[in-house]
């Protein structure tokens, strides 16, 4: 329970046995009253066992579906088990669970709350095509959602019952669909979206990619996903 609400933390994880145990223990330590669901997205390592040993509920997919598939499973679980709030957190430990109560509080008058980097708190910066992609996405999505969104691809978000029900039925499995397309879909249906600044930490395991070619491809795909999301119903 956080402020009288049943909260489920959803952590999609793919081969994160190195960090998932610490992440689960940290979340459970900071937020004693919440349930933690680790969605093992077809990992080939011991992610599910490590997560279960750390005290998380584990839903294990038989093969890899991508973040979108893992997240819809998480929202379906939240919907079927009647949670008031579902919160998505990355498995690499970059999201600080101490922000969770702040996100939950905002859900009183908002439907979807996004924990955003570059919104004043913490130090995190990107350059080149990746930055252009982020600028483009935040400009377009801010207009659609009629609120300032600076970090549209953030994997740190909190959803209330109405959004849980929608995401349990509909959640895109394609690349960037889980972040960009869901925002377009949600905003267009008249739900209220808001972002709160959160500080991001260094990943506990794994490294982000910095290749310029990959960054260009990322920009192209972001543009394609955004365009598609806009012309879809």
């Amino acid at each position: 329970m956080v402020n009288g609400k049943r909260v489920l933390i959803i952590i999609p994880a793919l081969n994160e046995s190195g960090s998932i145990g610490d992440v689960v223990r940290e979340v459970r330590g900071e937020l004693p009253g919440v349930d933690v669901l680790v969605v093992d997205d077809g990992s080939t390592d011991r992610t599910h066992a490590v997560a279960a040993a750390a005290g998380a509920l584990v839903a294990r997919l038989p093969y890899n579906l991508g973040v979108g598939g893992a997240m819809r499973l998480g929202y379906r679980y939240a919907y079927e088990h009647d949670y008031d709030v579902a919160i998505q957190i990355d498995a690499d430990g970059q999201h600080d669970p101490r922000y969770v109560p702040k996100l939950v509080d905002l859900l009183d008058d908002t439907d979807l709350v996004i924990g955003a980097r570059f919104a004043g708190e913490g130090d995190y910066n990107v350059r080149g095509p990746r930055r252009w992609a982020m600028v483009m996405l935040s400009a377009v999505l801010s207009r659609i959602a009629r609120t300032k969104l600076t970090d549209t691809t953030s994997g740190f978000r909190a959803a209330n019952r109405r959004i849980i029900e929608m995401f349990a039925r509909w959640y895109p499995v394609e690349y960037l669909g889980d972040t960009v397309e869901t925002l377009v879909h949600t905003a267009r249906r008249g739900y209220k979206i808001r972002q709160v600044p959160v500080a991001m930490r260094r990943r506990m395991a794994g490294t982000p990619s910095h290749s310029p070619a990959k960054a260009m491809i990322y920009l192209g795909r972001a543009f394609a996903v955004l365009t598609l999301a806009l012309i879809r119903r």
Partner: protein
Amino acid sequence: MKLTLVTGLTGLILLATIIELLRRRQLREKYGMLWLGVLVIVIPLALFPRLLDNVAGMLGVASGVSLVLFLGIVFLLLVCVHLSWEVSALEEETRTLAEDFALLRAEIDAERAARNELVSHDG
């Protein structure tokens, strides 16, 4: 004459293949019927390549063979698009199945854990 033999024989071999696949239930009927329909049109053309010359002339295409080639490519393209569509639908179905399966497995795990806890408390 030789060419007619080659094209005609090819058509007949394809026809036999499709029928054999249907007979062994390796092809869904909807696809089998599609390819049989195509062969019913193609085999007469293979035997008499000049059949379509009149139609081709009316459309401003120099030869019936070119017309067949053009229509064939358009048709194959449509078939490919249709197959991509079918695969997308199948992926969506298997995705839902995978999610259902994971939910059930989580449910069983939770129940088993609860039961073990009860047992250990009793003992």
